[in-house]
């Protein structure tokens, strides 16, 4: 069925729309009746006649990797549920979309909520969950309403609730709104938040959600995009679906481009089939007039920055090859090989008009604001990094401050309870590594020996 899109919002020729098929479609609305006109809930009807484990097998066969940031295989995650489990199992949809540079879930939720609901019902059936929550960020008030309406509609039609479509399977899905905290995107922080506590991420081990998640019961937490894919995997069959994209980087994913390009936006592409160059130059209309590329943050603001003139060596042995930034295929493995990550798919393009100090300071502000404060390195380090870059931007830093900045980041990285530590420290580590000269150029060597505030005196005396 070919879809007609709104004028000016037509998908790019290089796109492969599955998840975003109904986004920006002419005449499309988020209602159930509309959804049903194109096979809506047909996959659920199919799923409930299957063995739940067979659904998990399809997801495993598909090689679906989590679209939230870590890229962990979803089927493997489901497989972590303890065998012979007697506790209730919960499923949580992580719709806390909060990685700066990422803006895909909003469109799915606003324009195609039933796709998510159907994906969730199938996933719940597969993992044996009878209660599920959609944890949606507070800043999507309209999205929350749309989802609640969709859930009510699905309920009325028997796609949700007791004895779904006569299968004997019961499921309730509730929408749970966050309240403005990036840390709630971390799955154990999200779980604590959903339990009504401060969203302090849990230590792992022992609190792996699949074993001890919500209410200390086995819990699956998946991203919106990931759960939507489940429906399509069932439709195509895992084997067939895995042919989309590239090996080990299967399916489509939505790349969100922002920053210094002509036409920022979202593009659903086959994973690994589009390069950075194609993305920026073809799909986004290139850089702004007269500008050249300085850097790209390829997977949300916590991904390590890539410098425009870097040469990346990827692959091993005979497969080894050199890539420029333009050649990088946008997939999980290559971006990791380039020293960064595909993350959440948020690509932030930075051109030569931008001050690196300013960019890094903006990012450091974000992480200092969002650190939950539970564990020492991140609590103390994220604010410290922000304060240093505040001074760099203000011309009140000295060159050695850049060394301190880097070492503070390295004192956070790998030493915290959750991955926020890496998220907060990787930008600084990579910016200092790749743009040290530019950062140092914004400092003033004459300030090297200056005591910058009276309190530093007691600190310097190290009375401890």
């Amino acid at each position, binding site marked *: 069925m070919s879809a007609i899109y709104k004028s000016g919002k037509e998908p790019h020729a290089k796109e492969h729309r599955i998840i975003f098929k109904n986004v920006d479609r002419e005449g499309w609305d988020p209602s159930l009746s509309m959804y049903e006109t194109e096979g809506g809930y047909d996959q659920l009807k199919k799923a409930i006649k299957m063995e739940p484990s067979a659904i998990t097998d399809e997801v495993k066969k598909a090689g679906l990797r989590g679209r939230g940031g870590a890229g962990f295989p979803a089927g493997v995650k489901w497989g972590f549920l303890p065998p012979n489990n007697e506790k209730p199992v919960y499923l949580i949809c992580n719709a806390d*979309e909060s990685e700066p540079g*990422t803006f895909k879930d909003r469109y799915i939720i606003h324009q195609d909520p039933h796709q998510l609901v159907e994906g969730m019902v199938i996933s719940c059936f597969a993992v044996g969950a009878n209660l599920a929550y959609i944890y949606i960020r507070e800043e999507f008030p*309209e999205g929350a309403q749309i989802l609640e309406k969709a859930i009510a509609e699905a309920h009325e039609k028997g796609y949700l609730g007791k004895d779904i479509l006569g299968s004997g399977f019961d499921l309730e899905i509730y929408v*749970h*709104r966050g309240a403005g905290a990036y840390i709630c995107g971390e799955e154990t922080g999200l779980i604590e938040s959903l339990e*009504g506590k401060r969203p302090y991420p849990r230590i792992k081990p022992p609190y792996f959600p699949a074993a001890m998640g919500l209410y200390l019961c086995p819990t699956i937490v998946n991203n919106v995009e990931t759960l939507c894919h489940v429906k399509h995997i069932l439709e195509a069959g895992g084997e067939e679906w895995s042919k989309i994209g590239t090996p080990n980087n299967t399916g489509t994913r939505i790349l*969100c481009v922002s920053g210094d390009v002509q036409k920022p936006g979202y593009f659903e592409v086959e994973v690994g089939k589009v390069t950075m160059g194609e993305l920026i130059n073809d799909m986004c209309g290139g850089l702004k007039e007269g500008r050249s590329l300085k850097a790209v943050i390829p997977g949300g*603001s916590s991904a390590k920055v890539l410098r425009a003139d870097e040469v990346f060596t990827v692959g091993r042995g005979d497969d080894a090859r050199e890539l420029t930034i333009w050649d990088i295929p946008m997939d999980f493995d290559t971006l990791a090989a380039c020293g960064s990550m595909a993350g959440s798919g948020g690509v932030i393009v930075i051109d030569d008009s931008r001050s690196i100090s300013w960019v890094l300071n903006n990012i450091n502000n974000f992480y200092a604001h969002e650190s939950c404060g539970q564990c020492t390195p991140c609590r103390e380090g994220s604010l410290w990094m922000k304060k240093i870059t505040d001074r760099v931007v203000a011309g009140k830093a000295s060159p050695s401050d850049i060394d301190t900045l880097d070492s503070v980041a390295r004192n956070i990285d790998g030493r915290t309870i959750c991955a926020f530590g890496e998220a907060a420290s990787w930008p600084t580590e990579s910016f200092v590594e790749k743009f040290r000269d530019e950062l140092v150029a914004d400092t003033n060597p004459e300030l090297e020996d200056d005591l910058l505030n009276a309190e530093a005196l007691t600190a310097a005396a190290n009375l401890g």
Partner: protein
Amino acid sequence: MSLDVPSELEKEIDERVTHYPVSKRSAVLPVLHALQHHYGFINEEAVEWTAAKLDLEPIKVLEVVTFYPGFRQSAPGKFHIRVCRTLSCAMAGSYELMESLCDKAGIDRSGVTHHNPIAVSPDGKFSIEFAECLASCGTGPVCLVNDDFHEAVSDVDGLLSHYQ
């Protein structure tokens, strides 16, 4: 002092609480959201009302309220504006947008601190604060006015005149 919660609102809250059959404590956020939606912000009475409703110690509610920027602890203006501060929007001019909004709405942000992030216009019509990433990085600068989302904001006068 205790909060005088209208019965309609309490009914709505009670229904929300049923969404958490395993633990009432899970309903902290939805209860606070409902109260803030009605009263504009969360004060001490709202904290205690929530604690009593969910059989919690009030400190457990206060811990949550103060964690999330989404809960305001002082009264906002009639229209509360949240301007995205994070990278893509900042690159698209969100700091300038903030300045312009303050200028046009007559808001003085000089007293803004970490603990007091919201500035209110003298007439109480508008209040404003920076928010971190609103997840619409491709259409910056963006802002929320109460529950309305505005993308690629350039016409500040038009935006403000919409809320009169």
